């Protein structure tokens, strides 16, 4: 939502684009609630005008493969490299001539024309938390240590920026995070997902339940068991009696704001639309099967439902145990069996299902999908870069060159951007930094990546420090 503290976004040509400061000004006018809401909508529009380019409103599903997916075992295979580098897997042909990916991603191979691969992602941060922060916020971390923590001066998450610059107009939150309760087996505090500098109001609605469970529900969005719909209705009508006697509800914009949130909150708790958004049982069992019956696949399906319901950005964090504590991408040991038996088949299935599902529902053109980790993995099996626990069957962290995929939002599928060297030790062509990637995502969402926002202290800061969108993604 737009801040009462006024201007949070600015562009290079600054002053003229300050329209949306006017919500603050509204306070001064003492207008009533309907005007306030209308003005908020106008202010949001102006905020978008300040930050956004043109085109239809886009949404985003960010599929975050915590731990770091191995580029050599997925998108950027090197069959001619020595065995210790190329590993155990073989490439297969895809639906696009000249693009070959891992044999354990057959469904994705059939859909290679739908997504673009960037094989030249690069940075220098070797630990999960700071690298994740970098990848997700576009801000280079000051320290490369794992106990990075969440800091109030962290750069805002992509979704928090969306909440500021492109808030949802429907009765749903703008930014939702779906993740396991603990990210990683050590429960690392994952920066880059929270609002940081923008302040708590731009934090995501964090859903840590497992939507694969039948009893899945979002506590904040569901009523205590003893309160059924009828009782809630009775409570609301009693509440209405009290509100009727409180003239400030109409006379004070600040009071009116909380009231407007109440309306949205009641909508969220009661409206079939919002309830349905979180209700996976409304999906056909076959489709749920198609995604796969595990937490991440079902979160991905839930993400699609949320986008459909109007959420702007959903982050799905594949970052914790499925059945075992190490069922995520941080393959320091048993790199090949772990990927072959679990990670890759599950990933192949749910990611391809998502692409199909979005396509079939006509959502793909307006939805950006990004699947990425915070870094890749070492070219050489057994090589140690960050974690001494890496053994001769594992791959350690490798930020210098790795691969990600993007689809939707008008991105031309079936292309490969950038090139790595013969072992993926480094890029040879078209390096893409986390700054560039974040600029790319803003660009795809119609948010001007040159915009400037203000932190809680009022300091002007650039959305992206030094990055440019990878425009070839949309090129022909």
């Amino acid at each position: 939502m737009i801040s009462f503290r006024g201007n949070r976004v600015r562009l290079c040509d600054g002053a003229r684009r300050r329209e949306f400061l006017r919500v603050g000004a509204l306070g001064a006018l003492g207008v009533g609630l309907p005007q306030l809401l209308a003005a908020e909508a106008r202010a949001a529009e102006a905020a978008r005008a300040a930050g956004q380019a043109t085109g239809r409103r886009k949404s985003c599903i960010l599929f975050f493969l915590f731990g770091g997916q191995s580029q050599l075992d997925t998108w950027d295979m090197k069959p001619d490299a020595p065995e210790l580098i190329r590993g155990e897997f073989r490439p297969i042909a895809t639906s696009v001539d000249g693009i070959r990916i891992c044999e354990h991603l057959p469904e994705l191979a059939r859909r290679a024309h739908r997504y673009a691969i960037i094989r030249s992602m690069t940075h220098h941060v070797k630990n999960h938390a700071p690298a994740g922060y970098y990848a997700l916020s576009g801000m280079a971390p000051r320290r490369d240590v794992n106990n990075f923590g969440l800091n109030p001066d962290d750069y805002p998450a992509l979704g928090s920026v969306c909440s500021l610059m492109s808030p949802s107009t429907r009765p749903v939150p703008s930014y939702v995070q779906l993740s396991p309760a603990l990210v990683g087996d050590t429960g690392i505090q994952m920066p880059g997902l929270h609002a940081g500098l923008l302040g708590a109001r731009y934090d995501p609605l964090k859903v840590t339940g497992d939507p694969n469970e039948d009893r899945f529900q979002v506590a904040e969005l569901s009523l205590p068991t003893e309160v059924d719909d009828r009782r809630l209705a009775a409570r609301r009508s009693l509440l209405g009696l009290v509100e009727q006697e409180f003239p400030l509800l109409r006379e004070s914009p600040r009071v009116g704001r909380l009231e407007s949130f109440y309306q949205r909150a009641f909508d969220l708790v009661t409206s079939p639309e919002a309830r349905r958004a979180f209700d996976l049982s409304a999906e056909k069992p076959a489709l749920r099967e198609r995604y796969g019956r595990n937490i991440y696949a079902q979160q991905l399906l839930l993400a699609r439902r949320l986008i459909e319901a109007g959420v702007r950005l959903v982050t799905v964090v594949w970052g914790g145990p499925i059945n075992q504590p190490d069922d995520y991408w941080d393959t320091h040991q048993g790199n090949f069996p772990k990927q072959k038996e679990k990670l890759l088949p599950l990933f192949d299935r749910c990611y391809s299902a998502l692409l199909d599902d979005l396509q079939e529902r006509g959502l793909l053109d307006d939805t950006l999908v990004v699947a990425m980790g915070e870094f890749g993995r070492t070219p050489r099996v057994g090589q140690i870069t960050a974690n001494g626990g890496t053994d001769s069957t594992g791959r350690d962290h490798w930020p210098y060159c790795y691969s990600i995929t993007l689809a939707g939002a008008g991105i031309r599928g079936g292309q490969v951007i950038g090139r790595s060297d013969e072992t993926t030790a480094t890029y040879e062509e078209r390096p893409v930094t986390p700054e560039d990637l974040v600029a790319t995502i803003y660009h795809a969402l119609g948010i001007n990546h040159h915009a400037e926002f203000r932190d809680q202290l009022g300091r002007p800061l650039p959305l992206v420090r030094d990055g440019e969108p990878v425009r070839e993604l949309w090129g022909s």
Partner: protein
Amino acid sequence: MLGLLAPAAPACAGTAGQRPAAPARPTAVVQVLPAAVVLEGARAEQGLVVSVRGADGALRDAGAAAAWRITPAGVARVARQWGRRVLLPVSDGTAVLEISVPGAAPARVPVQVRSAAHAPPVSYFHEVVPALTRAGCNQGICHGTPTGKGGLRLSLQGYAPEDDYTSLAREGGGRRVNTSDPGRSLLLLKATASMPHGGGRRLGPEMPELEILSRWIAEGARLDPPATPRLERLELLPPPRRLELPAARQQVVAMAHYSGGAVRDVTSLTRFSTSDEDLASISREGLVRGTRRGDVAVLARYQDTLESLRLTLWKEVPGFRWPGLPEHNLVDRHVFARLREMRIAPSPPAGDAELLRRASLDTLGLLPTPEETRAFLADPAPDKRQRLAARLVERPEFAEYWALKWADVLRIQDETLTPRGARTYHAWLREALSAGRPFDQLVRELLTASGSTYQVPPANYFRALSTPEELSEATAQLFMGVRMSCARCHNHPFERWTQDEYYALAAYFGQVRREGRGRGEESVYLDPRGEVRHLRTGAVMRPRLPGAGEQRLSPDTDRRRILAEWLTRPDNPFFARAVVNRVWAHLLGRGIVEPVDDFRTSNPPSNQPLLDALAADFAAGGFDLRRLVRLILQSQTYQLSSRPVPLNADDEVYFSRAYPQRLPAEPLADAISQVLGLPAEYDGYPRGTRAVQLAGTGGRNAFLKTFGRPDRNLNCECEREKDPTLFQALRLITDRDIAARLRAPEGRVARLAAAEPAAALDELYLAALCRLPTPRERTGFLAYLREAPDRRAALEDAAWALLNSKEFQFRH
């Protein structure tokens, strides 16, 4: 840094020998600034601020309607240049410029032209760097970032011009400035978008910046010779004034004063902005256009100087009448004077119940009990409000609530201080407030503490903040109301604080050291050899107090003591103002300066005399917090209704009514507990502990977090979220803990379920809203309660409705 420049003496109509105008002559007279024009060198120019002083004595900008006539011809000429009308030199000599405006007596300005034949070379410092700033090249989102853009890195708004010279003239393989073929300089090609440029077209032939840069390159792109005069100050014309809406136009002229006495119009090299674009905007050429009533500062940046000019946008309100409200004390004197001036009427006084609830919540963080409410409403004494204020500040909960406020910004949290350290520190703070320790003394104890963080509680100040930089930033923000953090890396972009001043202040904390003593205990001590180095120059910084000279202190002096004593002197320009502003903001919902810790000339207070008077009274009264709170509570201003009236509906800065505030997290949680008659549980604290009493962040609690309890990682009140959010609404609607306490057999609802419904309802209303239900509410609620099959469940629903009402969640 707080003072404004003295105005130049204006040139007025007529001359000394003339008689006053005859009655038939116009009473309005033209006033021109500057009063005399000196054009030095062929490249000089001079714009004017032309005003008319009307019969009412007020000055109004008349630049657009003014005619300029210069005699004799041949000395200077009137021309339009860079978008404004200026006087340009022709040949050496003197002349008179007559400025006339229809209906007003004209003014005559003496003009002197010198060295008209000599065009001095372009000055890198005085012209090129300001041109880069004005064109926006070196702003934070363009090349003025630490990483630069597209390979070109400039210092933010030119604070390090020598470094910028290297970037422009030495780096980039000599392509950025091409002195043999200036037109092929990348600097020009990019800025004019003749070549692709991420920042688009920044310059064109209509802008003076392009000419400055082109000329400078053509002249060899040289640094200034060593003897070049320095900029001493920037003067803005006219002096502060009031602009009348709807016209509300004002030309501003920026005059640079250099060492050696030269003065030059640098308006076309100055970057202008206003502190609030909603109130007034300013063009590149310095023309202000006001749109809304209020106070605004015009900011002018030239070289590394930022100057500001305060303007009040004002309009006459037809039919404005001042209601006869009695003034209680100095607060009302100043608030009402400002309201009268701005043609804003105060709301009528609040009702007794409303005031009792407001004052209890503001001072104690607690709702009045039904018994207190009944007693107050029944009290017939005319001075009961004044006695209420006196009573509230003496309650023990007063110290607990104000300790919470200060604990936030002192960053009392378990993670950095350990739970034991946090509790020790918090207890010290609470006891100091409870004992009524004078605030200056409390701050001196804080700033000079040494020893164990477990044995000497205020020593935790130096644990919560670990470096000299953090300590000086926090100290400035907390007790001076100044946000200095920008100046850590570069000169403050919105204020005059320089990077040098930043490190000179940090030097007072340069000797502070800490060492572990095991079990989480640490000891704070001083290392006489400790020094602070300037980030950019690496120089060891001598301590220097703001606005004073360097101090040479012997190594065994505790520098912190020098700083603390200076800071807490009764005549310190920062301390008392900063503290009273925080207290005022807490009680009135908005600071006189807002944000409360962001005092800047570019962020004008909404009522300077009020701020000054409160600060003086606070200092004179021995920095007594209770006395200050009582003074404000007893003012008519504090006791006004929160309901707007037509003549104040658009005011949110002059305190014409009470501004409603959402209850902060802890008082809200405690108020809910009060209504439910059952406490909430906080991890690690005994049952019955109120949220307001929690020491560190040990009581980390999802409810409190949702309603804005800060993690205490910043020294800023802004860390506490004050605005409503969607998640707050969701939480109160669905909260399981509230649901359980609504149903609990030992709670208030269960107890009242046995009573007659009308009595039960009255009691719930008194507990939650400090009032009885209106007839309409009573009818509606009683119908529901009487028809319900389950009386107790129905009463739970009633209590739920009250807790979810905005009237409950706001202090109003």
